[in-house]
């Protein structure tokens, strides 16, 4: 293992360990469940309605849990000096950022998506339809993480940072939600041409994720550098 890879892995592992240790992982997952549990109380218990809405609701809840978890993505490191430390490692800062984003994906997004099938059952989605929902989320989530990361980085040195993160990231969430929900709905309807549709939607989601993956580390690194003081 080269030194650079070792450092990359260490940063990624550190992020995962801290997310776990500070309870962010468990918090995000339980947030998902709590939102899903509270919804029937708010909407009234009509199961049919819930089933029809379930994929969309799950997407929105996923997006909001992610947004909440991303809001402070770089904040603690910025305040306690850990970001200074990361600027002084023999690795390009873009790579450092990528390591942290990857860590966030593993520590938060994967557990959240892993919780979706169970939450889906609570909302009475047919079990056979869940794989498509999960696949769509796996394809689309990187874009959500990258967008939230950009917001978090731009807001890091800022009073009212949380607001900024949310405001900045929100427009990026719109396309992902639209295609994600569409894929899930198409998946739920079943049929012959549906497979084609679902494939196309997943493709769009993956393309959005790939594009953001190319762009975001640079934007984030630039934003964090500009925030230094």
């Amino acid at each position: 293992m080269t030194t650079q890879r070792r450092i990359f892995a260490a940063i990624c592992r550190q992020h995962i360990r801290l997310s776990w240790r500070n309870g962010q992982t468990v918090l995000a997952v339980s947030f998902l469940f709590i939102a899903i549990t509270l919804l029937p109380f708010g909407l009234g218990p009509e199961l049919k309605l819930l089933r029809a809405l379930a994929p969309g609701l799950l997407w929105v809840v996923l997006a909001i849990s992610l947004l909440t978890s991303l809001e402070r993505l770089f904040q603690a490191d910025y305040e306690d000096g850990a970001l200074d430390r990361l600027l002084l490692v023999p690795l390009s800062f873009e790579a450092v950022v990528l390591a942290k984003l990857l860590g966030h994906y593993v520590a938060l997004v994967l557990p959240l998506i892993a919780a979706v099938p169970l939450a889906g059952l609570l909302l009475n989605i047919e079990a056979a339809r869940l794989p498509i929902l999960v696949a769509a989320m796996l394809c689309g989530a990187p874009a959500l993480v990258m967008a939230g990361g950009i917001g978090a980085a731009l807001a890091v040195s800022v009073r009212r940072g949380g607001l900024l993160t949310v405001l900045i990231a929100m427009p990026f969430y719109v396309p992902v939600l639209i295609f994600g929900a569409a894929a899930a709905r198409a998946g739920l309807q079943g049929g012959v041409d549906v497979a084609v549709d679902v494939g196309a939607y997943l493709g769009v989601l993956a393309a959005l994720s790939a594009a953001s993956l190319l762009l975001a580390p640079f934007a984030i690194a630039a934003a964090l550098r500009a925030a230094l003081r």
Partner: protein
Amino acid sequence: MLKALENISAFYANPTRFMGLASRLHGPLWALAVLLLAYGLYRVAHVPADYQQGDTVRIMFVHVPAAWMALFGYSFIFFASVTALIFRHPLGHVAARAAAPVGAVFTLLALITGSLWGQPMWGTWWVWDARLTSVLVLFFIYLGYIALWQAIDEPTRAARAAAILAIVGFINVPIVKFSVDWWNTLHQPASVSRLARPALHADFLYPLLIMGAAFLVLFLAITLTRMQMEVLRQRLRVRARAGASENA
């Protein structure tokens, strides 16, 4: 980085060229804006009431140009930011910052006039129609951009961060537009009676174009004035700094 900083200080210490040009343009631009607006409103007042919509049709002459300016404003910010970042021209930051609230106000105007128009036409203030929704999202993008400028009080840092956001956000605009279009055409709300596009004949078209031109010139005039104010403010700051270090 260092060079950009030097550029900025050099520019603010002596932005005479821009200020000279601006002070010459300032008067004529405002005069043109007022004239066009007055003439446009006069023409609008004399447009025959629509057989279908009655007088509410007049909202169009504010609504449509405002919507145009909402889009134009964001493109303006994007190009100004690119200029600032790539060509290291600090005036770009100033222009982008000055234009943002203006664009946001036009966006809000489009939203409000649209809502006001929607109530008599569609029987509701708001629909999750593709075009409406993407304007709402654009408004959020404006808000984020302005909030970012206001949140960072060091000008050079704020400028960099805002430019990054402007560029990233601009890439996002067509994506949002495209996906929202697609989203809504797939699930067309049947309950909403939609207005067929009024075939615009000359009676409507010319006043509309005049109002559009008026709004454009107005946009430019306000933005220019805001830029002048910003430069003056920075100049005062530089002076205050110089004064402070001399006194010390």
